């Protein structure tokens, strides 16, 4: 996998560079017009935000119940990526909303629960950085609550009345809107996978550094 990282980063960089032309070729949406094209970056970032929460939760469960310390490195990596992709989602969304809805933000279930998940990631990372001994297990518990939030965020637009488009928008996209969307989604996913792998490697190398310092102290 580590050999694929430069390939994935390079390929996703090229694809994201080409993306504005691919997106420009897509037709305008009938009610929102040009600003709807934020969707082609907003949707992949939002889905990967949720994927990061799932990875963080599963890795934390493996760490907590399976007693596998390496899984904790994957959980930290996924939490950091969740924060990054969550930030992309929560910044691009209001920029789209201001033009399309006339407001930057509404406290509807989708937006509020997404903000809550972003805050859980922030709290998790602050806890891991400044929490001291025992923060790994406390953080893992917090990550499980973050993961539990994911299905709620996903279905919220279908269950409650909201301004946010429903989940049926993506499966019913016409082909000339679907091609740029899945093109951008592929680019974002490759970048996400490469960054997750590199960030987990960073955490595993940090663990080795700590182990070597401890061995030096004992010697």
């Amino acid at each position, binding site marked *: 996998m580590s050999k694929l990282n430069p390939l994935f980063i390079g390929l996703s960089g090229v694809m*994201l560079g080409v993306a504005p032309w691919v997106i420009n070729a897509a037709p305008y949406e009938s009610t929102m017009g*040009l600003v709807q094209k*934020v969707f082609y970056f907003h949707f992949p970032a939002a889905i990967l935000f949720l994927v990061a929460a799932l990875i963080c939760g599963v890795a934390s469960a493996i760490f907590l119940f399976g007693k596998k310390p390496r899984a904790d490195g994957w959980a930290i990596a996924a939490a950091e990526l969740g924060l990054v992709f969550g930030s*992309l989602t929560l910044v691009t969304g209001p920029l*789209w909303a201001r033009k399309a809805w006339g407001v930057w933000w509404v406290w509807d279930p989708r937006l509020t629960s997404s903000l809550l998940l972003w805050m859980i990631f922030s709290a998790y990372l602050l806890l891991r950085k400044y929490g001291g001994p025992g923060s790994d297990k406390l953080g893992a518990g917090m990550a499980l609550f973050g993961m539990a939030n994911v299905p709620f965020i996903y279905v919220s637009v279908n269950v409650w009345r909201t301004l946010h488009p429903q989940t049926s928008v993506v499966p019913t996209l016409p082909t000339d809107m679907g091609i740029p969307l899945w093109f951008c989604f592929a680019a974002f996913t490759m970048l996400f996978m490469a960054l997750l792998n590199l960030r987990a*490697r960073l955490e595993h190398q940090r663990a080795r550094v700590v182990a*070597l310092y401890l061995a030096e102290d004992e010697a």
Partner: protein
Amino acid sequence: MRFYRALFVATTLAVTAPIMPVNAMQPPAQSEFLPVEDIPPGEQIPAFTMLGAAYGFVWVALLGYVWSIARRLQKVESELADLESRSK
């Protein structure tokens, strides 16, 4: 006395002459605010600005994050190599 009167009129005209056409062009002072359904097209939020800001933010954030991971990884790996060479 006639001279002073002529000077006063000339000065008054000289000072107020550039102001008068401006005053003539100014709309009357607004006495009430009237709501409308749609704002004029020139005052609407440009979609391109929002789109450009969204894409610009994504690009800058992702490039910054890639750079941050590369820098942190390089630092840890050099520290690890240093420690491993010391322990041998």
